């Protein structure tokens, strides 16, 4: 076995605690911020945890010294998302929590997360989901690659890791083609919901997760000035938010053999044909 393949990997998986998409979600009319009650691990981040744990398992497992650190930033509840990631197989957790983080836009969020990755130190790979299910910007992984100087391998449909070369290969759709992209570590990897099937933690995994360490950190601990993040450190400001009027049900008809004609009549009435 080559020397490279035995060098343990240090992987950080970024997870986000988001309002459950199964319920109605609200933006507070006073603060113009998202109401974060009823939150869960962003469903798309489960694919990131799975990708990281799979890479470890395919390369000697945790016994070989690899680490998968599930990291999040956010209020108290965000720790639950780290716990879920630990149940899925991450080896330890980090929770960056500080009042000053509230109201961070993507530029400020990526600043905080990059500082967190720097704090961990000697990170080979940062793994994220393709998007959060709340803000849905999909831009933080690219911003992290820019800030950290890591290769950007994002929106992966499939992932392969070559341990000997310490190189990642992903498939990604671009324009009218599907590309195979390769890059050496360190890298930022974001995975789509096509990349794998996230595992469902069993009882044993849930019990094992209770013994894993979650470290709580504030901004001072990672050496970041409070003014660098939050609303002050952001370059955008939300100045208004209105709920769109809910769509109302229109006419519902039962097909008694002429519904196709009724459909076309509707198109004609609304000048859609």
């Amino acid at each position, binding site marked *: 076995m080559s020397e490279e393949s035995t060098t343990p990997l240090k992987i950080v998986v970024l997870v986000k605690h988001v309002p459950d998409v199964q319920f109605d979600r609200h933006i507070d009319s006073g603060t113009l911020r998202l109401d974060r009650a009823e939150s869960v691990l962003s469903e798309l981040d489960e694919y990131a945890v799975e990708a990281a744990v799979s890479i470890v398992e395919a390369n000697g497992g945790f016994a070989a010294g690899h680490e998968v650190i599930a990291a999040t930033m956010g209020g108290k509840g965000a720790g639950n998302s780290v716990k879920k990631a630990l149940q899925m197989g991450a080896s330890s957790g980090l929770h960056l929590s500080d009042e000053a983080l509230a109201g961070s836009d993507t530029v400020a969020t990526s600043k905080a997360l990059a500082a967190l990755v720097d704090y961990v130190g000697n990170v080979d790979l940062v793994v994220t989901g393709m998007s959060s299910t709340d803000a849905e910007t999909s831009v933080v992984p690219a911003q992290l690659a820019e800030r950290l100087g890591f*290769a950007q391998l994002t929106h992966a449909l499939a992932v392969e890791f070559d341990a000997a070369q310490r190189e990642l290969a992903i498939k990604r759709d671009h324009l009218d083609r599907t590309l195979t992209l390769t890059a050496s570590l360190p890298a930022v990897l974001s995975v789509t919901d096509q990349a794998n099937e996230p595992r469902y933690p069993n009882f044993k995994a849930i019990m094992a997760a209770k013994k894993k360490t979650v470290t709580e950190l504030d901004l001072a601990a990672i050496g970041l000035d409070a003014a660098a993040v939050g609303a002050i450190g952001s370059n955008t400001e939300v100045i208004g938010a209105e709920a769109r009027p809910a769509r109302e049900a229109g006419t519902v008809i039962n097909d008694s053999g002429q519904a196709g004609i009724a459909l076309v009549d509707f198109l004609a009435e609304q000048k859609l044909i």
Partner: protein
Amino acid sequence: MPSALVFFSEFSEAPSKAQRELLTLASGFENPAVAVASEVSAAAQEVLASYGVVKLYTASSQAQVFGQHELSVLDAALQATGAGLVLLANDNFSRELGARLAVRHNGAIITDVIGITGDLVATKDELAGSYSVQAKPTNGTLFATLKPNSIEDAPAAANIPLAVEELALEDSSDAKVRIAAAEAKAASDRPALTEARVVVAGGRGVNGDFGPVEDLADALGAAVGASRAATDAGWISHDAQIGQTGVTVAPQLYISAGISGAIQQKAGMQTSKFIIAINKDVDAPVFEIADLGIVGDLAKVLPQAAEEIRRRKA
């Protein structure tokens, strides 16, 4: 009024609807300029001029690297113009370019924009279209990615002479991310899903056969979409998936066939102007948001509608 710079990876003499909307939006700002990361033909340059574009920055590259060349082109054009507003398409690749440069130059990025005022207040959809939010930059250049079907496409009345500048860039072949292989995807004559005026989408209820969905789409000149259940079943390419983890569409008309309308699907289509739903199940949630709901068998309703459209058009 700030000056605007629009970025395209490629630009042909037959621009997409999304590209024309970006040019229309830019034409309302000072000195609209365009940066293109590949060669732009004389005919394509005429199209740019017809939208009032005054300056084109261009550079092409043969390097088999991913993203680096486009990033260099946009960065160089940004330095050359000092634009206060950079407009990009809403696809993942374009938004990532904007996101990186917003970090590099300490600017602002706002995605999923549907309109921008002269003083850079952007309106965008949030929470899958259930909120409309206004946001503005507080520092640096604003990078905005524009959702297709947001702006009425309108070329300028008179052509303005277009100045072209070939950018001198450093070789990007030592970039970190290399393109090891490229596979062409199956071409389609139908309009692109994200920018189509009409979308016909099928779900679990098509039961493996997208024929009736495709037939109605072709009668309407529409794009074909699908729910995740249908793409996961392998009945149609993943590219057709509409919803939270697929594409978001906002057409004039969305016809949903055999899709229950669970929340993940709704997230991808609920800002459509008109929604028509066909489903066997009278309790399908999609009926709660449909302007016209038909409880029936899509295998009967869709072909009958397609035939009737063709009859009326004849």
